[in-house]
């Protein structure tokens, strides 16, 4: 059993075995990250491949400070953003002022009500712009200012897209909840 340190050193020396070990150890986790930014699994796997290429080529730059898994995640997120930019011209993202947001009034979500699969699907179905901003802000924890820089958009756009993303997600979750017939007690 190789340690992370051994794997990193092996990869830096371009050793196939170390690369394979790195892949088998972290690909599941990284695909989870990629899938949040993609609209389906095939796209997520494309991002995953590009992420690993970047990882293998740049692993000698990994300083060893900070968590390795955090470094990997950052590369995957950056790759997803690059991917988003690269395909932006093909994706007609539409912002509609008349967007009708439905306030579902969902204030709390029971942890076990939704499976990861369902949550992934909710994200996958979002318009690409919403998905990017929501992930970066809500899951990765970036600030709107940073997100604006990363995506090359205005800070206010990031904020408004985030709130629209939230509304869209709430609506989807509410639908899902109704579908499951699992209503919380009404006086809760």
């Amino acid at each position, binding site marked *: 059993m190789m340690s992370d340190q051994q794997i990193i050193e092996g990869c830096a020396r371009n050793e196939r075995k170390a690369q394979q070990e790195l892949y088998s150890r972290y690909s599941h986790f990284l695909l989870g990250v990629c899938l949040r930014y993609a609209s389906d699994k095939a796209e997520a796997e494309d991002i995953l491949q590009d992420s690993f290429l970047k990882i293998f080529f740049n692993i000698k730059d990994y300083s060893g400070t900070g968590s390795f898994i955090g470094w990997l995640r950052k590369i995957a997120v950056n790759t997803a953003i690059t991917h988003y930019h690269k395909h932006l011209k093909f994706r007609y993202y*539409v912002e509609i002022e008349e967007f009708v947001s439905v306030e579902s009034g969902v204030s709390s979500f029971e942890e076990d009500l939704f499976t990861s699969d369902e949550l992934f699907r909710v994200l996958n179905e979002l318009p690409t712009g919403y998905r990017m901003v929501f992930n970066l802000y809500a899951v990765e924890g970036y600030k709107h200012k940073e997100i604006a820089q990363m995506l090359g958009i205005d800070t206010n756009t990031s904020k408004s897209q985030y709130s629209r993303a939230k509304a869209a997600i709430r609506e989807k979750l509410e639908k899902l909840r109704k579908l499951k017939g699992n209503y919380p007690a009404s006086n809760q």
Partner: protein
Amino acid sequence: MKDKKEDKALRELFQDKLGNAEVIPAPSISKALMRKLILRRFLHFNVASFNVWYAGGIVIAGALIAVVLSSDPGKNEQTKQAPVSTEINTPLINKAEKEETVNPAVRDDAENETVYEAKGDEKSGVSITSDEDDARIHRDKKTNGVTSVNIPDISEEGLIIEDKTGRNNLKIAVKQSDNLIAASVTEGCAPLKVIFKSMIPPRDSCRWTFGDGGYSTDRNTEWLYDIEGEYKVTFHVFTAGGKKFISSVNILVHPKPVARLEITPEDAILPDDEIIFMNYSTNGVKYKWDFGDGTVSELFEPRHIYSKYGDYDVQLIAFSEYGCSDSLVVLNVFSGSGYFVTFPNAFIPNPNGPSGGYYSPRSDESAFVFHPVYSGVADYQLRIFSRLGILIFESNDINIGWDGYYKGALSESGVYVWEVHGKYVSGEPFTKMGDVTLLKN
């Protein structure tokens, strides 16, 4: 505050569930990745790591150039006319135990495709064992010469890298139609105005068809649906590059209800009469009445008693099962209700003596008494003045008119002025003035 709490709940849900979620990639991903990795290293030329790989690459590149040169258009015809399969074996190149064979195979259908195979054997890190190991060069002669050359790819497993980029493009093309267009609303009540937006580059042209025979070629447009129904709106994009995309959205237009009402009795007397509001609306399931005096009702046909006479505007709103609504307002319902008081402009008193002014509308055919024709008068005061302004007659009873006598004597013939005021039974007040000519036979 509530918003912040909800926001936090949502973030936590996704952080907890997906922040570290693991998804198993397809097994083929690992292989494809390793192939790409090798390819990248191969293309990533570095003098320090010059090795057999590059030597092999140079050999293949040389072979490629030879192929390109030998297939210049002038010689194409000759090749076509020689449908015999030929096989040329280039001399073996032995360099660092590497063996490479180039087999240009010209087949019957060689006009379309020529396949060159390069077989190789390697020992540096990767070993190629199977016969399938090849770097393939596809030449498409349809467009006069080499149009696409897939960079030779030597993989660990000895498989050819599939043309991932081509597949990806296709996938994206299908995907984009989802985000091509947006409609401000997709469901609503007739007449429904829908704003359609598309985000396509200005150089691309497009066409909207609205599903009811209408169309537009504007990039952003709007359409008014005034007839109920379900419409399929189709959006065609014709890109500058010659590609076509279609996207569509369904618009559901619900019928609009029609609010209709009638108020009875027609000549209602306020505040005495109970008013019945009749409902003749169509497509409604729910109603809201506003009686105009601050009271409302949601009954289908409500009844209402007003506390006093007034100018009341009655409103009815009908709601359909889809939440569509229509309203109707009747302004000043209880005025102009057909009540009136009018006076003649002349009369001929009975010269045989005063009658006391009593008259009956039917019997007073000779017009001995000056009196009004009226309807619905509840309160009444009539005063008649001489031309000098002297009050010569007064009556608070509509059944008593002026017989033409003043203090027992028949008045002079001439013009007299009258003034009347009072209230109709509806409660509406009235005031009128005029003159009347007293005639004598």
